[in-house]
């Protein structure tokens, strides 16, 4: 008996639920979008907010993104000179930073075309001064971007400088007076801060990962080469 009464009740309930769930679907005859929007029309829209009833497809998402401000060619060359010593500037890959247009920093409009040197006026450095001699530097970006070429040159410069005994000895002197600094967290942190200037002390995991390169006994210049090269090529110190 109850079974018979339950059946129509269930039907009514299902019908009622269906009506409630789909009450906003009236008038829908299909799932065609209101507008047909192709990519070119999306690009032409200057401001999606101007549209009274923009289709979801034409809305642009302005998501915040992190664009790192990177060190330019002058900064990079200066840092290498500071960390690895004056001899670093005689190493081709380091010297080439002044020619590396995609490392940013255009020639300077503020520099004179002549500079006073050795008691006379001579032509200013064409790498720094905007001139017809080196027009390519007029195209260097104010904010250089991470590029493959930039990173290739970084890897090369770090490798050259850490494979050179003169520049390696210079950097190790900045860590410790001894010829080969001892394996210690503090020495690794000193190395870290040669590149990551004014940055907070690294976490233990980072310190440990560098200590792994330095054996507990029999440490040599070669072991330090690996550690220095790792910090040098770790890239993030380029972010200003």
């Amino acid at each position, binding site marked *: 008996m109850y079974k018979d009464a339950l059946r129509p009740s269930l039907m009514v309930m299902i019908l009622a639920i269906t009506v409630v769930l789909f009450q906003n679907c009236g008038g829908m005859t299909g799932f065609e979008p209101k507008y047909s929007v192709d990519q*070119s029309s999306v*690009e032409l829209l200057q401001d999606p907010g101007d549209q009274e009833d923009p289709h979801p497809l034409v809305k642009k998402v302005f998501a915040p993104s*992190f664009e*790192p401000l990177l060190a330019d060619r002058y900064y990079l060359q200066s840092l290498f000179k500071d960390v690895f010593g004056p001899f670093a500037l005689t190493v081709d*890959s380091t010297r*080439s930073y002044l020619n590396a*247009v*995609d490392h*940013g920093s255009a020639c300077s409009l503020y520099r004179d075309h002549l500079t006073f040197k050795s008691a006379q006026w001579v032509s200013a450095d064409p790498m720094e001064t905007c001139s017809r001699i080196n*027009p*390519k530097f*007029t*195209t*260097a*970006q104010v*904010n*250089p*971007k*991470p*590029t*493959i*070429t*930039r*990173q*290739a*040159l*970084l*890897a*090369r410069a770090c*490798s*050259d400088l*850490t*494979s050179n005994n003169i520049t390696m000895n210079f950097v190790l002197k900045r860590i410790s007076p001894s010829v080969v600094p001892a394996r210690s967290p503090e020495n690794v942190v000193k190395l870290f801060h040669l590149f990551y200037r004014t*940055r*907070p002390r*690294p*976490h233990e*995991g*980072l310190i*440990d*990962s*560098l200590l*792994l*390169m330095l*054996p*507990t006994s029999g440490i040599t210049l*070669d*072991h330090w*080469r*690996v550690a220095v*090269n*790792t910090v040098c*090529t*770790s*890239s*993030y110190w*380029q*972010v200003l």
Partner: protein
Amino acid sequence: MKTNFARREFLRRSALTIGGLGVSSAVFESIIAQFFARAVAQTLSKEINPSGYYIHMSLPGGPPRWCFDLPLAPMGVSTSTFVQGNFGTRIEKVGSEFKSIYSVDKHVIGNKTVYLPPVWKYGLVKHRFTEILPHTAFIRGMDMEINNHNLSNARQTAPTIGGISLNGVVADAARRPIPCVVDTTSFSGRGFRSVKGFSSSALNYTESATINPVSSLLTPFKNFMAGRFVHSPQANALQEQAFKEFEKYATARGVASSSLTDMYDNAMQLIEENIFSLSAKWPNTVAKYRAIVGEALSPKKGTLPGLFDLAITSQSSALFVTDRLGNKLRLTDARDMLGSTTKAPQMAENFAIAEILLDNVTSTMNLSFRGLSGVQRGGSVFDLIHDQHDIGSLVSTLGTTIFYRALLGCMTEFVDVLKDQKIFDRTVIHISSEFNRTPRIDGSGSDHGFMASNATLISGMIKQNEVIGNIQKADYDTVYKGTFGVARPYVLDGFNRPIQVNDVARTISAMLGVDDIVTNGRSLLAPKGGVWSVRKAEANNV
């Protein structure tokens, strides 16, 4: 090139060989896992390239336009509306004197008939220039708007001065190791601007056989790791592990940038894949194009009817002036101006660079071609630049035609290479200058033709020859009358004005599927059945 697998396998083996530096087996597993994560994250992929390839070939100075511009006579030439001025396309003996006269040849290309200067029939032993005509669109009747060498030259690729350039948007859309390669001696090269802020790489080339510009460009990718302790397998393995900690550090301090690490990985991959080895292609490739240029610049006497078939004497005429100082040829036969010292600077080098670098290294470049150097005057040499205010019409006709012959010879070879590489259908070659020249006499030569200039597009997307744009008979100021006066309106998309650089820029960006860089341009070509053809067939001399 090898795939990413090589690097992953290299890293895996490196990790397994660690042991000399006191690393535990637990660390091994961690390192290996990190290696794979990092290797898989590498994004360099030759397959992912949504856009096409774009090469701008600049002829700085504003060369006489006839060789590329004179399909200008799409319906043939009417002598009643043509004023030659100091122009000519052919050298003929008229009575006892030689003169530079204007004439064109009829070419039937598919179902179209166009009239072209004789140079198109001056092919080389292995290169028939007419083969590229079906893939060529001649845009004429262009109002360049600015009578300024530098700015107008830059506007060919960046119509808004200082704004985003065609090379820039193509570089933005592409994924190649070097965003763009340019000759920075050209203003269209210096005009490179990208939305993403890329910089272009400057070419360092010279005619010297000892300089390899591809090598110079790829030097950052030259393998420096062999035999160095810091790149031993053990060191590499430990370094990869440390990099992970550096990433954590950077993330915690808000300075992490995946693009930095991605670019580093890509750089290392390119080094390992030995992309630098492409520079080894330079000697043979440039030698091939130098041979073409050499053949083009040294025609045999008695050949090339209407140019080089007859001894050209009467050098005392003003038609033989070579510069603004009034110097003339002092040769018994004017054809001897093309001697062993005559070169087309950078021409062979440009095409060799394009052949080696396009697709492999970059998706876009800007190259410039500066006329002839070392042209014999008789006792001395001079450079036949494109800006020919003071060059007599015989010298101009002979020298410029031979220059175009060399350019077309290299172009025909280059197009064949692009076809072989299956990339011609996604490549646009854009040839233009800041302007061309008018028949208005200036000095002993001709003046800037910025009011009715031209551009040429060559692409596999174009399957039939196109001639676009209208030219008005008379100059607005009626100083002279002639077919080559000024650009006439070309009504399209609601714009009632002549074709401008904006229109050419929009046409190219449409063909390549990249962002438009102008707001008021009209695409002159449109795809129909996969082929880009003219939207409005109109090319009148009126």
